[in-house]
């Protein structure tokens, strides 16, 4: 009868505080990684880092690109994600859109938040995501396929799940993470190119030293593994949030089975959601790329899956249904 997730036991304020802490850790992790990329670049091309009046151009550029893209993404990221998915604002006169708008309104009332902007993606595969900067500037997007295949209760479950992402400030964290991921991929790509085409001044300089050699090796590993490492960091952040959003969504609707059966339907839809690009995958309620890694358990899935296995999420929701008596607000 217990909820099989350690996160469900945190109340909403603790969870928000935890999310802010996590955000700081993730930011530090990304900053260190960016710094490493830049410093390695400087070292490779000059043989030293900021010594003797030399400006560590690579380091400065790397940190600036990271910071810049993080700030840029907070104001433009959400709309960029929506545009790239081909999302259009929900149409009041279309009955299925009208129902979606109503359901979003209901969940806004249940959670005590302002109503987010509502978008529909013209894609036949069922999926949904939320994005934004904070609850006052947030959006929920669902595919037409979701509206067509779910009944009202199931739709309510999905919207409640997305609303929880908004309430828990997951949307902000995921937006920044996506931007930093992009920055690192871009920079590591440049670094790799400069390795092939650039002529390093490394051989001319005498002062390499052991520390320098170590840094160089780390840098080379870093730029080669950058895509994998950043994805692992982003995924670790997003996976844990799914259980929590399921649980607090169920608390909003007081009907965990609605979301459970919605997840079942989303899972059985075999087609990957073509309109949602790889960059927004970690925002979605279910993996839009249909990667098999997300349906497995174990070490590899722990490292690379964006979402916990749907089976496990459904089991957790069903367990909640046995104790779904109204609980006082946290």
């Amino acid at each position, binding site marked *: 009868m217990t909820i099989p997730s350690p996160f469900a036991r945190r109340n909403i304020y603790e969870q928000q505080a935890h999310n802010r802490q996590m955000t700081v850790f993730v930011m530090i992790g990304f900053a260190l990684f960016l710094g490493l990329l830049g410093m390695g670049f400087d070292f490779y091309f000059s043989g030293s880092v900021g010594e003797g009046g030399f400006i560590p151009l690579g380091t400065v550029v790397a940190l600036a690109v990271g910071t810049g893209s993080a700030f840029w993404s907070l104001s433009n990221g959400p709309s960029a994600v929506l545009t790239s998915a081909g999302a259009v604002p929900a149409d009041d006169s279309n*009955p299925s859109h009208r*129902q979606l708008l109503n359901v979003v309104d*209901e969940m806004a009332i249940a959670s*005590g938040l302002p109503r987010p902007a509502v978008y529909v993606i013209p894609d036949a595969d069922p999926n949904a995501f939320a994005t934004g900067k904070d609850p006052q500037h947030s959006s929920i997007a669902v595919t037409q396929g979701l509206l067509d295949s779910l009944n009202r209760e199931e739709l309510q479950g999905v919207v409640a799940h997305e609303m929880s992402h908004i309430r828990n400030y997951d949307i902000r964290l995921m937006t920044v993470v996506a931007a930093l991921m992009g920055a690192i991929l871009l920079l590591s790509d440049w670094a790799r190119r400069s390795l092939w085409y650039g002529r390093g001044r490394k051989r001319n300089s005498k002062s390499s030293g052991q520390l320098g050699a170590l840094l160089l090796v780390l840098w080379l590993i870093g730029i080669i593994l950058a895509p994998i490492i950043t994805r692992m960091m982003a995924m670790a952040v997003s996976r844990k949030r799914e259980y929590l959003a399921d649980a607090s969504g169920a608390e*909003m609707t007081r009907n965990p089975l609605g979301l459970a059966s919605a997840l079942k339907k989303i899972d059985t839809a075999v087609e990957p959601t073509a309109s949602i690009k790889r960059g927004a995958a970690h925002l979605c309620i279910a993996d839009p790329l249909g990667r098999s890694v997300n349906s497995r358990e174990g070490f590899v899935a722990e490292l690379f899956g964006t979402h916990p296995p749907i089976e496990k999420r459904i089991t957790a929701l069903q367990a909640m249904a046995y104790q779904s008596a109204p609980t006082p607000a946290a």
Partner: protein
Amino acid sequence: MAVYILLALLAVVIFWIIAKYNSLITLRNQTTNGWKQIDVQLKRRHDLIPNLVSTVKGQMQFEQDTLEKVIQARNSAVTATGVADAAAKENILTGALSKLFALVENYPTLRSNENVQQLQEELTSTENKISFARQFYNDIATRFNISQQTFPGNIIASMFNFTAAELFEIQVATEREVPKVDLSLKR
């Protein structure tokens, strides 16, 4: 020396009273706001009902009685005053409405009518909003009441004449009643 200690104690007590008072005021405002949310949705339902009734009236000649009851319940709900009164009257309206929807199922032409479907969706959503707003209101009102009734908050509450907020309760008689279905109904 003793005077200073007394003064310090007094200062602590005064600060505590101020903090407690402010938190009670905040909770009271949140409770009022929660009630306003319910109120908005109730108004919306009152506005939707005449539309619904006039849309289905033509085809539901035999159901005049039910329609009449819906209109009556709606009109008495509009004039409700206070939380308890509103809760009671709205619950009667909810009962009458759900009976009407059950009857609509017997009329295939109505069921497939786009207008009726739309109105049905609007009313379903409004029902849901009412219950979610009620859930939210009751949670906040309970917090407000608890903070007024537990020691030492109760001293402050009685000093400044705070009163407990009424909860929006489900009336056992109406909402928990099993809907009666008349099987002899002829179309």
